[in-house]
């Protein structure tokens, strides 16, 4: 397909830009924004597995983000006095978050479409409420005032401190998740997800164990959030329930859809836009969100299928008649 080739070339260009980007950034703030783009692109790729590939509308993805962040905070902060090294803590967090994906996914297996959406939304809210309230009777989460004093990522005694360093760490993780998403998409599991998205009943009749496939999607999607969560916690050096509001789920979902569901490059572009636009609009001060909302509408109106569509609808040649 012509567009696929175009997209691949564009991906290489973007990759190159990403690698040299910090050199061109005017200041630390913009490098921070770029790091945030990578962080959110990773999250969006995770949600894309659930929503874009498997077609399961998840409105509570932030729950996994929160679980990942807090798990990292438990393992590497003064809160419980545990200070696991970054390279050990992150894999543990990823595995546990994936497991939480299975736990949360399990009750939703029979649900379709928007019923699934509301249940996942419910889980998102429940997670938030638990984060707020589990500081008593015993203090687990720190309650509304969160956990502070989280360890920064350190490798071999070298602790990250500058935004540039974080940026390259996040960029590397993004590259990995992109690779993983790409491999999954064109694998038997990826096809099973897409089949479920298209027609669950036919998928079952074609021999797909939809229970397993959906749980796999939830687990992998959640594990990406586990990565993102660890990064947020170690970068912000603190976590609060306020980091994981419903609006955050919506924000990540918008990245996936605006970019073009299922299209990896599109999802990254969606994250880029939705992280950078509010920053660009910062100078508008009180009008910032007004313009952002308007922008979101306008973008969708002009690109209803998202920035990059999944299957180039318009590059088909005619089926020769019989």
């Amino acid at each position, binding site marked *: 397909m012509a567009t696929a080739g175009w997209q691949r070339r564009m991906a290489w260009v973007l990759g190159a830009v990403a690698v040299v980007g910090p050199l061109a950034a005017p200041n630390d703030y913009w490098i921070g924004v770029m790091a945030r783009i990578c962080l959110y692109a990773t999250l969006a790729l995770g949600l894309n597995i659930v*929503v874009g590939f498997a077609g399961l*509308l998840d409105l509570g993805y932030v729950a996994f983000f929160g679980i990942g962040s807090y798990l990292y905070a438990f393992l590497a902060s003064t809160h419980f006095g545990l200070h696991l090294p970054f390279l050990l803590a992150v894999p543990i967090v990823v595995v546990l978050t994936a497991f939480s994906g299975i736990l949360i996914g399990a*009750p939703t297996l*029979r*649900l*379709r*479409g*928007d*019923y699934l*959406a*509301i*249940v996942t*939304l*419910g*889980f998102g*809210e*429940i997670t938030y*409420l*638990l984060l*707020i*309230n589990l500081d008593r009777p015993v203090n687990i989460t720190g309650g509304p005032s969160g956990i502070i004093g989280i360890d920064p990522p350190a490798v071999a005694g070298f602790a990250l401190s500058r935004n540039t360093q974080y940026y390259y760490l996040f960029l590397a993780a993004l590259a990995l998740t992109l690779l993983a998403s790409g491999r999954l998409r064109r694998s038997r599991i990826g096809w099973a997800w897409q089949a479920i998205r298209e027609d669950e*009943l036919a998928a079952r009749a074609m021999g797909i164990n939809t229970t397993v496939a959906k749980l796999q999607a939830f687990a992998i999607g959640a594990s990406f959030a586990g990565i993102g969560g660890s990064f947020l916690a170690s970068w912000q050096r603190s976590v609060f329930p306020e980091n994981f509001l*419903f609006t955050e789920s*919506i924000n990540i*979902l*918008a990245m996936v*859809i*605006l970019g073009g*569901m299922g299209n990896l490059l599109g999802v990254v572009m969606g994250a880029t836009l939705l992280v950078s636009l509010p920053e660009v609009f910062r100078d508008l001060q*009180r*009008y910032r*969100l*007004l313009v*952002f*909302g*308007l*922008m*979101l*509408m*306008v*973008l*969708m*109106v002009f690109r*209803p*299928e*998202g920035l990059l569509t999944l299957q180039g609808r318009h590059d088909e040649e005619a089926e020769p008649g019989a």
Partner: protein
Amino acid sequence: MAGVLAILPQQIVFGLALGTVYGLVALGYTMVYGVLFMINFAHGEIFMIGAYVGWWVLALLLKAQVGALHPAWVVPLMLLHAMLFAGLLGVGLERFAYRPLYLRGATRLGPLISAIGASIFLQNAVMLSQGARMKVYMTSLLFPRTWRIQIAGASVSLLVIVMIVVAGLMMWGLHLLVQRTKLGRSIRAVAEDREMATIMGVNVRRVIAVTFFLGSALGGAGGVLVGLYYTQIDFFMGYSAGLKAFTAAVLGGIGNIRGAMLGGLILGLVESLAVTFMNPAYKDVVAFVILIVVLVFRPMGLLGENVAEREKV
């Protein structure tokens, strides 16, 4: 425990009143969902704007000093304006933010995002034009505190009764409209298969616009009643009300009109009973757990038809 039982009737009344509010807003969600299968995230904002319109009507009346304000005519006047304004706003949104998407055959999720954009936009537009400070409804000028009656050990204010009656009437009217009339049939036809509906001669755009008008007008009416009942409105009120109403609509079976009302009432009751018997911090946890449990056993909501079982293969 005896203490708890003594307040139970009162708690039920509080729960029903709250549930009516949720149900009213949920009706609009369900209407729009019914045709476009789209969660209209801007519905909460339409509800909020309805509340502001009602506030302005009341404020202008007070300013004009039209003598004694009697709820019998003031409330309908507020409702009328709010419904009209909210309805037109809904139609406008449909025209500019959603129609361009669904006409081009976008996936269901495209409109969801543009609805979120609309919701952010409206919220901030109201904040910027009306101020971030909340506004106070002068309800006490309309409904004296003494207007209340005793039912089974619970004291019920007249306002709650007005609310329940208005909500009931609206729900019933809508139900009849959708199930019994030709318009209702065409709404359902559009919902199922837009292209086939056109081939039947249905003007799809008009049907969708009408649906948006009705759903949004209901949201506007809900806004006024909520303003009267809670006496405070602010630009952010649509957020949590919208979330709860959406939950209620799904609980009842989304797309089902009586389901929306039922879902609202149940949600209201669950919340008020949850704070009675449990740590109130977990009130919303209880509500969502109940929602999840209900959906696990009835995947299409309480009144939603179980298409899964009746689906022909």
